[in-house]
């Protein structure tokens, strides 16, 4: 026998015929596997928080092959979160001081003419208002170290982006399908974006501040999206060769982006006057994992510093029109937001002066009446 004869094994009819199944069957089966994995993760999460005693039973029945799995199917696209509304005022009720462990912060320093007068602890229900972690955040730093541009991808959502006040949606083509070009009516605004729905029914929104339209469109075209990720697989990936020059990814959700809620505790400081003339400070619980803070504007007169050192951690600050918005993570699960009239250094000084107090501290007791 010549060894060359062995190579004929790979050739029908000398070797086995080799008849693969139709690729469509394989794709359907693979998609089902991915969805079941997502459903199993969701079930596990539910079990972890103790809301459901037990779901997702895998049962092997006599005579059944492994490709038949009994258990919950993946939540359909309709089960994905909806985009949070542009403006939302979640219903809230009072909370006690004792509930505010880790949130009871009061300032030891405020700018001249600004006074801390009390606190307003509350419990907010996030029904219909739940914010969602972004899927992907790209940022461009300027030569002076300040933030020059930002792109934020949000999704997957169960319904298309509805637009909002002062938002115009113009039809366009993107990713081989109909999409919306998102603009704001504010003159000279550098905000723009694209909204679209993938063939699997999941909707996405890519918005940008300070980036030109061609760059944003190129990123949108190159995104690899997966609305039913396995385990901690990202829902959105931008291939390295599609990353715009100078940009870097600063956040990428692992698995489906975390949805806020269903409720959160809010420690609102009562400050007189509040922002924009004075200051507003809010400390709240959160389930979100993405670093707090995002660029809300870009253009002349807007100064933004990424990675502001505040309270021993990294915060995100943006200064526009004499108002500074400073976001930081106080502890895992607790975030702070401060808005003050002044500059970034002044805002950081106020934040750094925040001191945690006990529930019986006289400075936070309700006043008479």
């Amino acid at each position, binding site marked *: 026998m010549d060894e*060359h004869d062995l190579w004929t*094994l790979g050739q029908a009819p000398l070797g*086995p015929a080799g008849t*693969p199944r139709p690729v469509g069957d394989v794709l359907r*089966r693979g998609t089902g596997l991915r969805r079941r994995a997502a459903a199993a993760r969701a079930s596990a999460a539910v079990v972890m928080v103790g809301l459901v005693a037990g779901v997702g039973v895998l049962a092997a029945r006599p005579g059944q092959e492994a490709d038949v799995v009994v258990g919950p199917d993946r939540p359909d696209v309709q089960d994905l979160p909806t985009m949070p509304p542009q403006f939302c005022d979640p219903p809230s009720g009072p909370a006690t001081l004792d509930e505010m462990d880790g949130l009871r912060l009061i300032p030891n320093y405020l700018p001249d003419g600004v006074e801390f007068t009390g606190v307003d602890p509350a419990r907010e229900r996030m029904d219909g208002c739940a914010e969602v972690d972004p899927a992907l955040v790209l940022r461009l730093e300027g030569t002076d170290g300040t933030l020059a541009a930002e792109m934020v991808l949000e999704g997957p959502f169960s319904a298309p982006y509805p637009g909002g006040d002062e938002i115009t949606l113009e039809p366009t083509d993107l990713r*081989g399908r109909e999409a919306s070009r998102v603009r704001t009516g504010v003159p000279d605004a550098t905000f723009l974006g694209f909204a679209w729905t993938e063939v699997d029914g999941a909707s996405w929104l890519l918005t940008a501040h300070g980036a030109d339209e061609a760059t944003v469109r190129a990123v949108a075209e190159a995104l690899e999206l997966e609305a039913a990720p396995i385990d901690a697989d990202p829902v959105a990936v931008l291939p390295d060769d599609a990353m715009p020059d100078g940009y870097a990814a600063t956040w990428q959700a692992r698995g489906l982006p975390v949805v806020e809620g269903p409720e959160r505790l809010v420690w609102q400081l009562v400050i007189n006057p509040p922002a924009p003339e004075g200051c507003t400070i809010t400390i709240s619980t959160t389930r979100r994992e993405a670093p707090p803070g995002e660029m809300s504007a870009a253009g002349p007169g807007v100064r933004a510093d990424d990675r502001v050192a505040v309270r021993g951690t990294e915060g995100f600050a943006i200064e526009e029109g004499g108002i500074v918005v400073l976001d930081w993570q106080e502890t895992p699960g607790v975030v702070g937001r401060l808005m003050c009239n002044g500059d970034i250094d002044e805002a950081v000084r106020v934040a750094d002066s925040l001191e945690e107090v006990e529930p019986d501290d006289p400075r936070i007791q309700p006043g008479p009446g």
Partner: protein
Amino acid sequence: VTVGPLPSGAERPGPTGRQRRAAVTARPARIGDTKVGGVVGTTGGRREDREAEFTAFYDGQARDIVRTVTVVVRDPALAEDAVAEAFARAWARWRQVRTHDRPGAWVVRVALNECNSRFRRRRVERRKAHAVARPDHVIDPDPDTSDVWSAVARLPEHERTLIALRYVADLSQPQIAEVLGIPAGSVASGLNRGRRRLGIELGPEADEEEI
């Protein structure tokens, strides 16, 4: 909070060249290839693009992989089922699988594992049914196929597996060692043993393959 450099679906570089044998007609993609259908890294993020990429990978390699697994398990229906399941798992994790050094070899390994699982289940089911033990169901090679295939089908399973991975899947000996999780030396000795058996059965001994 994790923030930092992030992975992407970037292409892995790597050579695809390999010795061709005169008896084999050139084919566009082989199981040991390091690229998926030649299109890795060229597609965008659309689901249709990923499907097209996977379909090209499937079209290029599924037939060879079914043949490979058929030679190993000697049961075309089982091989077709197992390979379909392995490809389905590949599609379920396509973002990771497409970046493997040899995604076709990954599918082969999963398909062989699937066959082993199904063999085990069959045995358990038979025991549960109090059936009389009998050998696993085996379909003999079609009488129209070659004597070589018939002779290979009679080899012990380990040697049959090595022959299939080497001469049907066209994997190198190091690649076979990786797929089976055994030392490369065991691959070489097993292949030599299998070729000697075939030589005895079919005639003059096969040429020793360079290692």
